[in-house]
């Protein structure tokens, strides 16, 4: 049973403008990228479960030249608003690390 942190050399999160959050999963090589880049475990449902994102506001891209999977979702609360805890969303990646891929 592999988790995201087992097969990625780096995982990061960042705001992409004020309304979107984006994750970059840098897989540790082409083998794990090929095996997991289309994994249903990294689908819109995951963003909904972990972040309350609306599944139809989730984008996902595979970038084979970099062994990267990019996932983005529309924020559910305004950047910098009354309940903000992570303005740049730079710590949101932590919740992805233990996601089980198979």
């Amino acid at each position, binding site marked *: 049973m592999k988790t995201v942190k087992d097969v990625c050399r780096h995982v990061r999160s960042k705001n992409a403008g004020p309304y979107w959050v984006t994750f970059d999963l840098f897989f540790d090589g082409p083998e794990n990228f090929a095996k997991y880049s289309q994994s249903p475990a990294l689908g819109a449902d995951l963003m909904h479960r972990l972040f309350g994102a609306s599944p139809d506001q989730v984008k996902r891209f595979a970038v084979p030249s*970099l062994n990267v999977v990019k996932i*983005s979702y529309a924020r559910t609360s305004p950047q*910098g608003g009354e309940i903000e*805890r992570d303005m740049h969303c730079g710590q949101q990646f932590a919740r992805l690390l233990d996601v089980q891929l198979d």
Partner: protein
Amino acid sequence: MSPGPINIIVPTGSLGSGAVEEEVRLGVARGAHAIATDAGSTDSGAAYLALGMSKNNRGSVKRDLTILMRAGAEAGIPLIVGTSGQAGGDKNLDWTRDIVIEVARELGISPRIALLYSEQDKAILKAKNAAGKITPLAPLGALDDATIDACDHIVAAMGPEPYMAALRDGADIILGGRTTDTAVIASFALLHGAPEGAAWHAGKVSECGAQCAVYRNRGSGVLISISQDGFEVSPLSTDNRCDPDSVSAHMLYENSDPFRLVEPGGVLDVTDAVYTPVDDRTVKVTGSVWEPRPYTMKLEGAAGGRFQTLMLIGIQDPDVLCRIDEFHDSMLAGLYERARKSVGPEAGDFHISLRMYGWNAVSGDKPPAGTPAPREIGVLFVATADTQEAATQIAKACNAYFFHWPISMDKELPSYGFAFTPADVERGQVYEFKLNHVVHVDDPMELVRTVWIDLRAAEAA
């Protein structure tokens, strides 16, 4: 300008973040035709647009401008700055203008300065909206007049055209209001006939300066060199290098789509871009495509909302630490009750949150059962209310409860670690972006005002 590659120094990721004089000198020696940098973005939130305030301090911005204006004047090449003063509103731009004039006097130079204003008049935007010329971007919906009225300042992100016009009219220095980072850097090359795909992609890759290099902590700037078949990028610091991965990976940064970037007047598509090392420091990029589209400008509007007052305590009591979630919930309920009773209806519809730093402050989620207790936590109290006075009254009402809330009733009341006195800190307003829309224009200059300051003429007068 002689035919051949168009060379542009991008000295830093953002004006005021630390341009390096030696790097700029090196870029000039390598044949730079222009210096271009942005000076801000939306990244740090809505306060800078709502307040017309810079994020970078005045001293840092002046320091960078001094380096860049001196280099530009000595080499006889233009200095192009976009999104002045962090947010690119009129106040942000005027703040930057005053520093530029001060630096020009100190350096004894007399540049022609073009100021490109892109803050928008609400009445014009309402008319545009009524005419169906404003459309929403996900996740927001259609715009209404009340939202326009709610904004303190609204800017429209410019494309390269106002910069190209100012360069054509002889600007030595251009200070832009809100502009896409990419357009600021691409403008000079586009004016001089560079292919659009290469010019826009070069702008995107270099927007954060040396961040597209292998070592992000070595040096500040990059040189881009745009020719008919693509562009090259290399760091200006001699102990750094670019490689195909470092350059291509920059397309991931702060974008929700790694292949397609929507800009005013088109889309940059890098799906088929090829990244090739030229030498051990330089990467060449080919295959970038520009797809023209009807011209749109992205709108950004910011407004101040309600007010917050903070308090902070540190807790090392092991009885609390092994029952943190229970402590959080019982204390929060106690604080709400206390605030309602003490302040009464005049507090309005207030909100209190407790953020347990060291436990779950960032996510607010309950950690999995069995998560070991930390050695200490910091608890941040945040009261939000319609006025600063109400938020502070709520904090003051909660002070003793926050200080002494027990985990067990059978022991004497604890006292947690307040860090300062007075314990409550007025944080001011909460600032939010209100718009995520584009306005459709027939002419890229339609919503832009250009103002000239000619220091040469001012001296002669």
